[in-house]
């Protein structure tokens, strides 16, 4: 990673949450709900992209982490009377453990087979939550009335204040992601994506890296799930359904996988579409599909990838101009 990129990521990690805060004062409750959703799903997408974009492993099962975090939080607070803060940590823990479990499986098989395995594992989690563990999870009805994590005696049931709390967590996650990408650890993950065999030859314990990346990704996803549960006062088995894994995949690809801001941009785009187009037309799913197809065909790097490409081209052009100028000057 270049120094410039690290600085850019660090700037983005600060500017994006600030932008959310500033924006939140421009509108009322609907805007707060929308921004809260964007923030929560962004955290999920960042967690997902750690595996999908950075480490280059395809997963159709991230809904399992998201869901298990949500349920850990909801069940602990509702049925066990655990305090919200502790339950939030437990959600991260559950996500991490499940992530590590997926990671261990990923060591045995790779590529598309692994993708399918994650799908099956997540379906299994979905089945357990929706049917077999009904006594604790409320079955297909889910659990309603989930509470929100309180802090400093603030009234977190005010949507604006809860949004601020979410932004705080978001900021920490973004910073974490920026540091992780810049760290030696993140570099190794990136190397594993580019060439796992070579990374192995260079003496890195690829298994360990993959496993731990999954654990981190699972933890972040679990956190997002718990935060969503608090946001909408509800957790349900749909959170673990493969369609949820599909959603986070679509969001990440729209924004630009493997890029720092990509997941966030993708989530924002997705939610804006749902809100904006959903209001005007019932056909927003179809439109989303068309956009998704267009992105896959012509913008494989997503929105952020396109921006990066533009910047690169402009820089190249500028460098070319500079060279040309020097040449002409030399000629005179």
């Amino acid at each position, binding site marked *: 990673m270049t120094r410039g990129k690290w600085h850019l990521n660090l700037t983005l990690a600060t500017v994006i949450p600030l932008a959310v805060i500033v924006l939140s004062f421009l509108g009322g409750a609907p805007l707060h709900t929308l921004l809260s959703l964007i923030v929560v799903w962004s955290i999920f997408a960042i967690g997902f992209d750690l595996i999908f974009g950075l480490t280059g492993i*395809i997963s159709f099962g991230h809904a399992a982490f998201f869901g298990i975090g949500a349920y850990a939080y909801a069940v602990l607070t509702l049925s066990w009377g655990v305090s919200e803060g502790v339950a939030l940590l437990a959600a991260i823990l559950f996500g991490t453990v499940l992530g590590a479990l997926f990671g261990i*499986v990923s060591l*045995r*098989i790779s*590529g*598309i*087979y692994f*993708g*399918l*395995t994650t*799908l*099956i*594992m997540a*379906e*299994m989690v979905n*089945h*357990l939550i929706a*049917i*077999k563990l009904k006594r604790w999870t409320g079955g297909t009805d889910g659990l309603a009335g989930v509470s929100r994590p309180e802090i400093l005696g603030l009234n977190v049931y005010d949507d604006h204040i809860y949004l601020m709390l979410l932004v705080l967590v978001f900021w920490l996650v973004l910073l974490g992601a920026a540091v992780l990408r810049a760290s030696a650890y993140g570099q190794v993950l990136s190397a594993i994506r580019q060439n796992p065999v070579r990374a192995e030859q260079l003496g890195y314990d690829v298994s360990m890296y993959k496993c731990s990346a999954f654990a981190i990704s699972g933890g972040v996803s679990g956190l997002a799930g718990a935060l969503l549960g608090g946001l909408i006062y509800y957790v349900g088995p749909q959170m673990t359904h*493969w*369609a949820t894994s*599909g959603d986070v*995949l*679509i969001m990440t*690809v729209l924004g630009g996988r493997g890029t720092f801001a990509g997941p966030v941009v993708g989530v924002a785009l997705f939610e804006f579409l749902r809100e904006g187009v959903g209001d005007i037309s019932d*056909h927003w*799913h*179809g*439109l*989303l*599909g*068309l956009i*998704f*197809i267009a992105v*896959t*065909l012509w913008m*494989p790097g997503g929105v952020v990838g396109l921006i990066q490409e533009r910047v690169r081209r402009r820089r190249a052009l500028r460098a070319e101009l500079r060279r040309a100028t020097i040449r002409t000057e030399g000629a005179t």
Partner: protein
Amino acid sequence: MTGTLIIGLSIAMMLFLLAAGLTIIFGMLGVINFAHGVLYMVGGFIAVEVVNQTGNFWLSLLVAPLAVAALSALLEILLLRPLYDRDHVEQLLMTFGIILVLDEVVRTVWGLGYHDIPLPGSLSGAIPVFDSDVAVYRLFLIGAGLIAGLGLFALIEWTKLGIVLRGAMTHPAMVRSLGIPVSTIRTIVFALGGGLAALAGTIAAPLIPIQVGMGFGIIVDCFIVVILGGLGNIRGAIAAALLLGLVRAFGQQYFPEWIELSTYLVLMIVLLWRPQGLFTFSKGRKA
């Protein structure tokens, strides 16, 4: 017992019909076609339309697969062809987009209500088979599955097209050097896979409600068959479908509430222990 066996066979044949198209598309193109379920749904709707217009079920068995095969060919040419040189993930993402769009198209054209195909007289009613009454349509379903399976097998094993398909699975560039345009072969494979999905949708139509979203639920079942059989392995798909169909049939008798969970567990074990599938018999064959 025999009744259970026959019903199990019919479940198995339905599973095979569902999964066959998915497995050949994966085997020959390396594409996991998530849109398979949607093509199955489109097939069902076209069949309903044909029966509504003409009252002829047999015609729908012909028209729906052909129409969806043509649609699939179009999708392949327009949307997948530009992506083969890229990462496999991209083709898979594309199939995600196709799901959203086709779902919307079907919803716009046919609405959200339920649709039905009444059985033709010759296929309705039931006949006693030992201790059970078995619907005539189930016997037809078993026959149709067998014919489709044998047909596919013959196509792949005994025809020149089959030889080319198998060759293109491993060395597409070499196939081109023998003068055969691989891009056309890919289109044919995708059309074949889509046509099979539609055939499954048509054959399933008299058994289930035809409705938007009906393709959603089958995807996981399809993957189960394809994984157990080995991705891209037609014989394996038949064997896996038989295994699963019979396990479901007899499981329903003895441990109905644990079928799903145990299916998932078996799948996990297979994926971890033999990712190439359970049914890779011939040493000459790639999984």
